[in-house]
């Protein structure tokens, strides 16, 4: 029974990671369980300068999910390298550092510094607005998406994973652009843009008005995105969006994901990722399948 898998060049001991922004770097979660058992840890987005985040409230519960408007709060590149990276380097699991930026230069600067510091894999968060084109996300324009991936790829040795937004008409077009830019893999999906309004106060429930919808509510959208990309672009996929159990993870793997990440479910059940790892192992045993990679993309379309 073999749970090991890979995302392009990146080898993973098992296919279950934790998603950016839902696990910090693991310092707190380590008080609850042994995080070295994870397939990998994806950090909260790191930007060049420290960012303080959005005004509260930043969290709002929604049916089978939640909205958040954290706003890429992080300590910035310099402090990340000094204060966070040493902890991650000591872990017996893969670290993927998530990088965000408003300009091409910001992406490249942060990615290069992390690469030089020995980070082996980077996830580019292409879902923040690009200041060059007001309001539009990097991953809403295939040309810009390809451009930022290419610029980073050219300057780093690390494995580069492009994280795409589902807030587009055709996600395969963006995935293809990321591949053309040289991405080693794509992460699907980031949160869906959503909103909630309180009828009592007659105001938006989030301080930033709108936010990202995550959790089991978005799982069907995420599975569909993985399915579409897997069937039209040859690139390894890291699947996420509402995964809370091994059954959920299997949906993504069968749709074509080589690995998966647990996001908001960490807030409800901090050991969700461990349970998924165990559940996947049990499934392989029960179905007498040798390795998890034999299942990737195994779902057959109906005639």
């Amino acid at each position, binding site marked *: 029974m073999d749970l090991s898998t890979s995302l392009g060049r990146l080898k993973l001991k098992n296919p279950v990671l934790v998603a950016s922004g839902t696990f910090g770097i693991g310092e707190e979660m380590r008080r609850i369980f042994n995080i070295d058992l994870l397939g990998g840890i994806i950090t909260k987005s790191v930007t060049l300068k420290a960012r303080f985040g959005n005004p509260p409230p930043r*969290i709002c519960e929604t049916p089978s999910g939640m909205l958040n408007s954290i706003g890429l709060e992080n300590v910035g590149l310099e402090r990340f390298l000094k204060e966070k990276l040493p902890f991650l380097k000591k872990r017996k699991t893969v670290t993927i550092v998530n990088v965000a930026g408003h300009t091409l230069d910001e992406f490249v600067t942060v990615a290069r510094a992390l690469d030089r510091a020995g980070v082996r894999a980077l996830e580019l968060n292409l879902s923040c607005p690009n200041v060059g084109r007001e309001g539009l996300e990097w991953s809403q324009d295939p040309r810009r998406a390809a451009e930022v991936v290419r610029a980073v790829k050219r300057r780093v040795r690390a494995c580069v994973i492009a994280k795409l937004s589902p807030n587009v008409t055709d996600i395969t077009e963006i995935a293809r652009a990321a591949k053309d830019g040289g991405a080693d893999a794509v992460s699907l999906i980031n949160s869906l843009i959503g909103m909630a309004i309180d009828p009592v106060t007659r105001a938006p429930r989030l301080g930033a008005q709108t936010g990202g919808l995550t959790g089991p509510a978005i799982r069907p959208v995420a599975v569909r995105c993985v399915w579409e990309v897997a069937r039209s672009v040859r690139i390894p996929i890291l699947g996420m969006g509402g995964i809370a159990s091994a059954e959920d993870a299997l949906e993504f793997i069968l749709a074509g994901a080589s690995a998966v990440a647990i996001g908001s479910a960490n807030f409800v059940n901090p050991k969700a990722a461990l349970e998924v790892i165990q559940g996947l192992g049990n499934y392989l045993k029960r179905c007498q399948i040798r390795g998890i990679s034999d299942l990737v993309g195994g779902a057959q379309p109906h005639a």
Partner: protein
Amino acid sequence: MPILQNSVRIVSNRRLAQDHYRLRLERPRSFPEIEAGQFVQLRLEEGWDPFLPRPLCLYEHSRLWMDVVYQVVGRGTAILSKKKAGASVGVLGPLGLGFPILLDGDTYVFVAGGVGIASLYLAAKELVRQVKGRARFILLFGLKSVGMLHCHQDFRELGFELRIATDDGSYGKKGYVTGLVEQLFEKEQLGRVWVYACGPRPMFLALTGILPRFGQDAYLSLDEHMACGVGVCLGCAVKTVRGNGDPYRLVCKEGPVFKMSEIDWESKK
């Protein structure tokens, strides 16, 4: 310190007053030591709706059990109120940094608004244990109406002087608890005072208008919407008046107790 995540059995779930309940949970043997003012996250259902766990302060505990006192205010607390002894809930805790136990006071003033009283009892008990006989203990308690009166007897038994206000005048003085605060500080010689408070936001805002006039700060237990409860989602930020750098602090990890003077109250208006 480790944090325990476990499914635990409900020992009892007793109605205390209108919309108020006291839930007793079996305390797992491996549950870490609890400090006054810490809280737990309760996962109410096995499924995913309601999605997020609910943060609730620990009211009292022994080696074998731990209690929370809660008010039914929405869907999650309504679900909780219908749980029977023998059922299970998910517990994550203990979480946060509690109240400082300051031993050099002449008078300890506890200010509670509604169910806010639930986060104060452990600190009261601990302080009384350590300084009883050497200091005066006063509880100022404000609530909507007499039907919601609860927990005050526990404070009386600790030796607290009780002053109660109700919005509708059905018990004690008519008006808000902050009226009692003003009266106390204006009329009495209290010596060195420590104030511990928890209540709704309007109560906190009113305190910021009263206590500084008497040169008095306070320790407040704040609430903010939470997802993880441990410091990883960055969802429970509260704005402080910290000068340079990040003004936000996390209520779940760096709180829920903050000094009144640390908070940027303009951001809360």
